[in-house]
């Protein structure tokens, strides 16, 4: 398990960064933001919640139910709140006893880019458009590892919305730029075809499709830790959110960076206290 000054592991799948490690994480995000500037990608800051109806439109719940984390609140009825306060709100094992819950209508963001497709719903573009966004993302996992597999983590994404040719060119260029970046840093990495973690994959046609039409490639550090990924979505989001281009659903593609995983790679490769090369 990683141990480094400025890292505190919370044991619930989340970590605290401070000092030089926090500075490294922020410099990494700024570096990815400067990469996004190559395409004049407009930066967006979205909230942490995303409406469940947005994810339902892309069939996210059936594909990834195991990853979902929901923001829950108590039913505001006074009698229900009294039941909560008169009972044992939190027991000795840290479990909350919430009496009645209000209806859950949101999800804690599972991937930063989903907000962008919802944000541009119904729009029509006449040229390729590029966007970037950073968010804290949440994925429930069966185990957690500091910086490498967390319940909540930071993700920077750069998204292209355009034609099939434009999205392909974007990913080719982004891949080349990231190769240049990691070569400059000196990290041992390689790209590998990957699959999304579909629930019951043998029953999911999207998993089968991903086998015959590779749409996801991960940048593996040390042959094991995915620190970035490129993703081709074809017209999946364009169709779901009625975003158009040339009379057809827009094609989209993205490159995503897991900030804490990059920090982990720096620690593993250069040591917990640096000096680390400039990202």
């Amino acid at each position, binding site marked *: 398990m990683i141990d480094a000054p400025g890292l505190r592991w919370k044991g619930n799948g989340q970590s605290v960064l401070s000092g030089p490690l926090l500075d490294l994480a922020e410099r990494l995000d700024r570096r990815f933001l400067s990469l996004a500037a190559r395409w004049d990608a407009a930066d967006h800051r979205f909230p942490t919640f995303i409406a469940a109806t947005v994810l339902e439109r892309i069939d996210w719940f059936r594909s990834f139910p195991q990853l979902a984390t929901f923001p829950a609140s108590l039913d505001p009825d006074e009698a229900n709140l009294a039941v909560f306060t008169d009972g044992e709100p939190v027991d000795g094992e840290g479990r909350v006893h919430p009496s009645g819950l209000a209806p859950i209508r949101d999800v804690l963001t599972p991937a930063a880019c989903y907000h962008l497709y919802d944000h541009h719903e119904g729009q029509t573009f006449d040229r390729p458009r590029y966007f970037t966004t950073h968010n804290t993302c949440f994925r429930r996992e069966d185990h957690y590892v500091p910086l490498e597999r967390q319940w909540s983590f930071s993700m920077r994404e750069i998204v292209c919305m355009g034609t099939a040719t434009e999205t392909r060119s974007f990913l080719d260029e982004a891949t080349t730029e990231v190769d240049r970046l990691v070569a400059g840093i000196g990290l041992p990495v390689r790209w590998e075809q990957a699959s999304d973690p579909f629930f019951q994959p043998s029953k999911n046609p999207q998993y089968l499709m991903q*086998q*015959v039409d590779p749409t996801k490639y991960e940048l593996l550090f040390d042959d094991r830790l995915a620190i970035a990924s490129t993703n081709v979505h074809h017209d999946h989001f364009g169709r779901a959110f009625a975003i158009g281009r040339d009379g057809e659903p827009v094609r989209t593609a993205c490159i995503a960076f897991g900030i804490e995983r990059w920090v982990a790679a720096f620690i593993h490769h250069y040591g917990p206290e640096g000096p680390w090369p400039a990202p």
Partner: protein
Amino acid sequence: MTEDEIRDALRAWIAERNPDLPPGEPADDTPLIERRYLTSLQVADLLLYMEQLARAPIDPTRMKPGVFRSIDAIHSAFFS
């Protein structure tokens, strides 16, 4: 079935699900997935249809990248 009959059957299956296709499409080298003539929801159905054409189960180990790229690729991967 002859090779031409299999190709005709595959083209007809794609055309039936894409009524707006231009005349002559899909050609044998038309990129089916890239042009969205074949989507993830249709691949499993196409597999079942191919098993009918082949009169045999499809070997799952043949589900490799590119095998559904075009009519040419499907024929080469599953029927040749």
